[in-house]
């Protein structure tokens, strides 16, 4: 940033418009000198520059540092302009930045000619780069030269000494600000906060859900259960195979018996009856299945009688007094009344008299109140409407369960089977009593086989039930495992975020731990060089910035325990420090100083004059006319100047003016 011009309008003692131009500077001539007597308007011009860049807050900060009276924007407006009712104050800055021409204009827009308080004015700011106006001008200025950093570029010579005080908090803040440390630290703190948040989320999820060990133990349990199911199925297969063998054996014996002439007829009858029993068993199973399916409708059939009673009591109590119907009727009535009032015509087509209007309005209010009461009631409790009652009732009327019919059919089939079994037993007894040895043996064998078959069937059924139970358990545990595992991707994603966050945190930590010492080293080198140039005392050879950011001067035998210098020496040390700081900051901006030579003796003034050009590529010096420097020193300074301005205060008009004198 290099200033090319300043225009000041109605600012402080500057009445009307004053234009200052800074021409292209030679490499050797980079100092611009503003001279004026005390009270001529030098500090006002300084403040104009700060106000243009940072507004009222910037001015307040500067005046706080210089212990001057703190000023609001309204106090900065030229008194004469205010008295004349034209308090249009503006400061325009023209500068080059990174090869582009920039214009910054801060302007007071009065809301009325006579202004008394801050409420009477608005302040506007505009910023353009290469002729194009940009949005967010304050942010743009902050990017070019942050307000915190500006204190090292725009300073009052009398006040800079505070930077040289041992362990000065200001020094620490200044250093951190100019190096951008607060921003990095804030970013690191934010990241740490986010990381804590992510950690808490991960812990929450882990606490609320089963641990990985739990899930692993469930998986093991499922594997064991699946193995058990496999074994049971193997056992069922073996039992079924045994059953099939036994059934085949019984079938063979039955066939042999059936073929024996003496019992042939009985055996045929038994066979026929057994078929009938089997067929009836199948029918019974079918009926039972049907009964199970009807169970979905059972609850509605169970409730039907009770429902009828309750609903009928409810309707009787409320009659047709349905709260929603009342509301609906009231709404129609309200609309009708509002139409009458709006159109001024009643239902018979006649005009409504004025006297009637208030009566209609009362009825409208009454309707609205009633509707509001109903709404309030409905918001708190639920009252079923006639339609809801009717719909629900219509739904259950359609539900039927014919358990009794099914039961009677089952009973009939079971009775038939009992009779068939009785007949089968009688026939078998008949066969047994035939007294034929072979038949008796076969019958006994059949009985044994049937007993075995029955036992096998029971065993198969027990095993099948066990298997089904185990399969159901496995399914349930698998569902739980799937649900628990579904949290893993969330946890993984959070862990990934955490890892990224940690990387950023480490990077920021690295910057803080590495950048600060490196920058400090740079500052020390530049500041030490400046100190050696400006300070003639050979006892100090350099400047050291401590870990606590205190400044110490280094002597030939090491650095001193505690730096105590004169006010002038402190100023030199502070200036050296500032010089080092502005170089380390990697920012290009003009150095603007006020009352730089005030406290220094002749020797130091000389050395500062010589060092001034190295401060920046543009140095603007405000100096008391015929003061601060001797004539020869002023002459020496002039030789380094690109231009010189004189600031004068006119007692008659009570205004200041600026004139270029060289």
């Amino acid at each position, binding site marked *: 940033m290099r200033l090319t011009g300043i225009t000041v309008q109605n600012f402080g003692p500057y009445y009307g418009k004053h234009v200052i131009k800074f021409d292209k500077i030679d490499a050797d001539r980079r100092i611009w000198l503003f001279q004026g007597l005390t009270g001529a308007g030098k500090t006002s011009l300084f403040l104009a520059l700060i106000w243009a860049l940072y507004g009222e807050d910037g001015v307040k900060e500067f005046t706080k540092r210089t212990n001057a009276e703190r000023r609001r924007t309204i106090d900065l407006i030229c008194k004469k302009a205010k008295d004349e009712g034209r308090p249009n104050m503006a400061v325009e800055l023209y500068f080059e930045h990174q090869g582009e021409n920039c214009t910054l204009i801060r302007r007071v827009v009065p809301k009325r000619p006579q202004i008394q308080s801050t409420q009477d004015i608005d302040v506007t700011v505009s910023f353009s780069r290469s002729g194009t106006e940009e949005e967010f001008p304050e942010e743009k200025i902050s990017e070019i030269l942050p307000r915190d950093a500006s204190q090292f570029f725009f300073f009052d010579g009398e006040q800079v000494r505070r930077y040289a005080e041992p362990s000065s908090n200001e020094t620490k803040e200044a250093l951190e600000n100019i190096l951008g440390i607060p921003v990095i630290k804030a970013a690191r703190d934010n990241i740490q906060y986010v990381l804590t948040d992510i950690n808490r989320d991960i812990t929450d999820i882990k606490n609320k859900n089963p641990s990985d060990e739990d899930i692993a133990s469930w998986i093991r349990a499922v594997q064991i259960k699946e193995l058990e199911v496999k074994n049971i199925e193997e056992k069922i297969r073996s039992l079924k195979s045994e059953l099939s063998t036994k059934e085949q054996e019984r079938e063979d014996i039955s066939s042999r018996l059936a073929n024996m002439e003496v019992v042939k007829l009985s055996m045929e009858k038994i066979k026929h009856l057994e078929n009938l029993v089997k067929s009836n068993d199948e029918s019974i199973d079918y009926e039972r299945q049907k*009964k*199970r399916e009807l*169970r*979905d409708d*059972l*609850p*509605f*059939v*169970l*409730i*039907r*009688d*009770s*429902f009828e009673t*309750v*609903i009928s*009591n*409810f309707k009787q109590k409320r009659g047709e007094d349905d709260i*929603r119907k009342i509301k609906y009727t009231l709404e129609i009535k309200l609309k009708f009344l509002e139409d009458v009032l709006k159109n001024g015509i009643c239902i018979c087509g006649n005009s409504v008299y004025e006297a009637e209007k208030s009566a209609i309005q009362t009825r409208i209010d009454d309707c609205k109140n009633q509707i509001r009461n109903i709404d309030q009631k409905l918001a*708190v*409790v*639920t*009252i*079923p*409407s*006639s*339609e*809801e*009652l009717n*719909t*629900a009732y*219509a*739904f*259950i009327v359609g539900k039927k*369960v014919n*358990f*009794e019919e099914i*039961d009677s059919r089952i009973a009939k089939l079971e009775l038939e089977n009992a009779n068939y079994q009785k007949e089968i037993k009688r026939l078998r007894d008949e066969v047994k009593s035939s007294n034929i040895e072979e038949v008796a043996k076969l019958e006994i064998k059949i009985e044994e086989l049937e007993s075995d078959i029955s036992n096998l069937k029971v065993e198969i059924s027990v095993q099948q039930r066990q298997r089904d*139970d185990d399969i*159901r358990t496995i399914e349930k545990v698998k569902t739980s495992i799937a649900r628990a595992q579904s949290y893993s991707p969330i946890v993984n994603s959070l862990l990934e975020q955490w890892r990224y966050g940690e990387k950023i945190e480490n990077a920021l930590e690295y910057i803080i731990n590495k950048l600060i010492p490196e920058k400090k080293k740079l500052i020390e080198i530049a500041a030490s060089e400046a100190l050696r140039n400006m300070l003639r005392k050979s006892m100090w050879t350099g400047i050291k910035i401590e870990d606590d950011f205190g400044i110490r001067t280094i002597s030939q035998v090491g650095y001193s325990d505690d730096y105590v210098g004169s006010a002038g020496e402190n100023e030199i040390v502070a200036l050296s420090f500032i010089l080092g700081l502005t170089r380390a900051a990697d920012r290009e901006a003009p150095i603007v100083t006020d009352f730089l030579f005030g406290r220094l003796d002749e020797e130091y003034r000389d050395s500062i004059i010589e060092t001034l050009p190295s401060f920046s590529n543009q140095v603007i010096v405000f100096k008391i006319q015929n003061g601060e420097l001797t004539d020869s020193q002023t002459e020496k300074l002039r030789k380094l100047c690109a231009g010189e301005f004189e600031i004068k205060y006119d007692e008659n008009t009570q205004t200041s003016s600026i004139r270029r004198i060289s």
Partner: protein
Amino acid sequence: MNQHERRTEDYFENGERFATSVKEMYDELENAGFFKNHPQLFLTGLAIGIITGRKSGKQADTDIIKVDTYASSDPYGVFPVYLLAENEGITQKELARLMESYADGGVEYLYEEYKDTSEIDFSDLLRLAKK
């Protein structure tokens, strides 16, 4: 559906679930093959709880079915409407707690019958409702 007509979901908050205090009875009655799933048993328990006037005194603490699952079995809100008519002025939260309490009462009734007789006679239940 006209402006006054409502379905079961309208009585409850979105995402609400019915809970039970007798989850183990649900498992046992379903494993025994009397009921095919939780909604079927919940609805039957609710009906039996209402007709026998039996409410469970225990605190329902285990989620058993979602409201929208229940609503697919009772789309027109037969049971909510019944309980609202019988308990005029209750809030929707109270309605949900009342349904849970009756359903648990009904399930307990079925469970006791199953434990006593190893059977559940559904025709008997119908006769009970007629009384």
